């Protein structure tokens, strides 16, 4: 067992959480901790258990195994109303019979705070969310985005060190979503609280988070910074789920600390964070933007170079995206920035040695 120091390191710690609905194991041995002041994102495909874990932290579900620790106290036996883990619901869940001010004041009134204090704290929360001028409106007189802000104000007014958000932006249109995203991140920095934010939108996760927790089928695939999960995915699932990637697989050879792999008669080398022995199965993940496409054969020996046929080239704003087929029949996705033309026909792709990330599985 780790000592007290370990407990204090994290504001929220989940130890071996299991949750089962009927025969459906929705959460499987979740072990992770989050420090104070972090913007944490739970990311994963639909149905992977993100909401379930968030609601387990909030106390709406009791885990079928494992422990939930918040601020050095074990809370998984504590009923939801005693946890002080304010949450922003996907459907906002504003109280329809109360106006904006009373919605935000609800939690403070339950704490029987003095009237003056309630008023000033509500005002502050409404100012932070730019909703002060709507304080006398009833929720059904607000737009979706405004209701969203009230829901956030109602949660932050609680002054808990934690704020839980379950896909709070999913009911907003794309434009609004992007601006609220930025605001939320600024709000989190300003308040310096731990936000746990659930989403299945990988670009949202990359843009906002300090820490991303990638889920798949009730398990954690990877915990890391946006850079880490993007450039150093530890599983094929993560590499595939976040962004677009090209995969080649095979038996690894280890040479001078880098991992080598044969594909289409060429030798590829890549970097990894895992230990490899000769003969281990390796997956190389190569991002589309790491590959260059040209009409002539590559000049550097260090680069892996493959002759390909261009199947399709699409101009999508800041880049051209190609789909090409190599000589063993594999499709590659390649992004070329700073280009003025769309190539067709036969061509070559080249991959610099340090751009392939090697995954052990």
């Amino acid at each position: 067992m780790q000592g007290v120091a370990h407990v204090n390191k994290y504001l929220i710690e989940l130890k071996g959480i299991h949750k089962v609905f009927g025969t459906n194991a929705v959460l499987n041995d979740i072990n992770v901790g989050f420090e104070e002041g972090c913007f944490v994102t739970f990311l994963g495909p639909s149905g992977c258990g993100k909401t379930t874990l968030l609601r387990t932290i909030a106390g709406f579900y009791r885990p079928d195994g494992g422990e939930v620790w918040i601020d050095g106290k074990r809370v998984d036996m504590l009923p939801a109303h005693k946890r002080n883990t304010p949450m922003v619901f996907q459907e906002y869940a504003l109280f329809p019979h109360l106006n904006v001010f009373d919605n935000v004041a609800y939690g403070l009134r339950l704490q029987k705070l003095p009237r003056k204090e309630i008023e000033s704290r509500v005002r502050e929360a409404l100012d932070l969310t730019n909703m002060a001028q709507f304080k006398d409106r009833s929720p059904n007189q607000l737009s979706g985005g405004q209701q969203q802000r009230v829901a956030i104000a109602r949660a932050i007014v609680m002054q808990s060190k934690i704020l839980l958000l379950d896909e709070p932006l999913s009911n907003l249109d794309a434009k609004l979503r992007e601006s609220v995203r930025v605001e939320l991140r600024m709000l989190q920095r300003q308040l310096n609280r731990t936000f746990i934010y659930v989403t299945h939108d990988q670009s949202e996760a990359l843009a906002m988070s300090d820490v991303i927790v990638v889920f798949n089928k009730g398990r954690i695939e990877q915990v890391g910074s946006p850079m880490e999960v993007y450039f150093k995915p530890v599983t094929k699932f993560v590499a595939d789920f976040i962004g677009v990637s090209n995969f080649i697989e095979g038996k690894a050879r280890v040479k001078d600390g880098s991992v080598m792999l044969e594909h289409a008669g060429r030798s590829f080398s890549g970097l990894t964070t895992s230990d490899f022995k000769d003969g281990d199965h390796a997956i190389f993940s190569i991002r589309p933007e790491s590959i260059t496409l040209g009409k002539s054969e590559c000049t550097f020996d260090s680069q892996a170079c493959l002759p390909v046929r261009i199947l399709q080239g699409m101009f999508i704003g800041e880049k051209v995206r190609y789909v090409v087929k190599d000589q063993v029949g594999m499709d590659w996705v390649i992004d070329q920035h700073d280009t003025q033309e769309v190539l067709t026909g036969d061509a070559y792709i080249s991959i610099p040695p340090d751009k392939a990330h090697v995954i052990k599985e």
Partner: protein
Amino acid sequence: MVQTQVKERKGFLNQARNVLSDPSLLIMLAIAFAFVGLFIIYPLAKLMANTTLETWRNFFTKMAYRRAYARTVYSSLLSAFTATALAFLYAYSIEYTEIKFKKFFRFIAFLPMLAPSSMTGMALIMLFGRNGLLTTKLIGVEVEIYGLPGIWLAQTIAFFPMAFVAISAVLRAISPNIEIAAQNLGAKGTELFRTVTLPLAAPGVLSAFLLVFINAMSDFANPKLLGGLFVTSPVQAYGVVTGDADFGMAATISAMLLIPSLAIFLIQAYIMSKKSYVTVTGKPVAGLKRITMGKGAEIVSQVYVFLVAALFFMVIGIVAFFAFADPKAYYLGKFVFTLKGFTETMTFNAYTFRNSAIIATAAGILASVVGLLLAFLNSRKDFPGKKILDFSAILPNTLPATFLSLAFLLSFQRMLTLGPIPILPKLTKTIFIMIIIQAVRQLPIGYRNALSGFKQIDKSIEEAATNLGANVGKTISSIVLPMLRPAFISSAVYNFISAMIAVSVIIFVVTPQWNVASIVVYSRADSGYYSEAGAMSIAIMAIILGTLWLVNFLSRGRIKVFD
């Protein structure tokens, strides 16, 4: 990695542990189970315990009992059939045609529900009886209204609103889209009715029929007033208790009344759990109207609803006539109108109105509160015994009214003890038994209303309250109650009205000190004092109409009791 199989924490112990961790939930469960256990399950068991082998043998060997039972069944079938058929035509006319004054005719459909059901029976006697206004006095013929024809006609009118409510709800739930789609495919007129509307409405119509049947089976007042020699089981049970004080025999007769309704209840519950195409909805598209009838059929509909309304007005009219006609002059064939009889009756029976008001108000509120509590627990919480609670909450709808009444009489004659610990004082001859039995009778309505209210509240709203620190009690008082207020008030008012007019359900537990107005209507009519009974009926109707008006006025039309 070590693979350990983690199982879902469920079952009795885990549920119990969840319950124990929330004291306010624990208290609510204690109240719910105590109420249901003491006032639904215990009386049922107690009544059964009063039957003996001998009473059962008597029932099946003695002609009188079997005959009464057979008569009850077939008179109830007849009444249920006519009430349902007439109500279906009425509801169909209102929902499917462009007849005039729909709102008015819709309201008229509820009229018989706004007075004690014995008013209908009494009106028939006043019109067609030995001294009937229409037959003897005006036309000069004698018809035999007593017996099956009287019961049949009175119950058809008295139970019409009940069938109407159920059927019109189903017709409204059928999406016009479906019918418009069918019309679009070429179905028209009667073809549309036969191939689309009727099949969709059939389950609702059937359940209306069964509902009326169950209620007719246990109806006491009208068969007592009009039966004559045609004795039905509830009347017989009453006679056995008041005449011979043979509680065992009465219990057996009542238990026999329970059998068909319980069977119907269980079969319906089974079917409901299999499928529910009664709720074929889909959003009604604004502006889409179904017009499925030709001009001729529409005129027929208009005439039909008018005739039904005229019949109801005739019932009320004759009762009002007797309430204000001088009885002595009437006997001599003269019509003299005076307020004297009316005011005398009112003065003399003022205390029964006071009792009625207290009991009906308390019962209306109690039924709604308990219904709300049970609905909350059932739709929002997980605890051991949930199924039992749900079943018990709708059971009183199935218990024949006279059965319930006798069961209460037998159950609460003495102080209840659990070993040496007293748990409930003797309730008979107190106001409490009157309140509680009415509340139990109305509980299914309060419960169902609240359940559908909860379905409309997104669960996450309550979770948000919990999340902000509200315990169960606080969530209810600050979130659930305010949101359910309109539904709560309308169910309380509805229950109040039902309690104001109830006769069968209190017939065994009513005492002179706590006598109520609806019982006076029946008992005066039974003794032949039609003027007094008429005056009481009119006054009760006035009170109920006044209440409805007041609710409508205070809520600015937002709370609809009948809808």
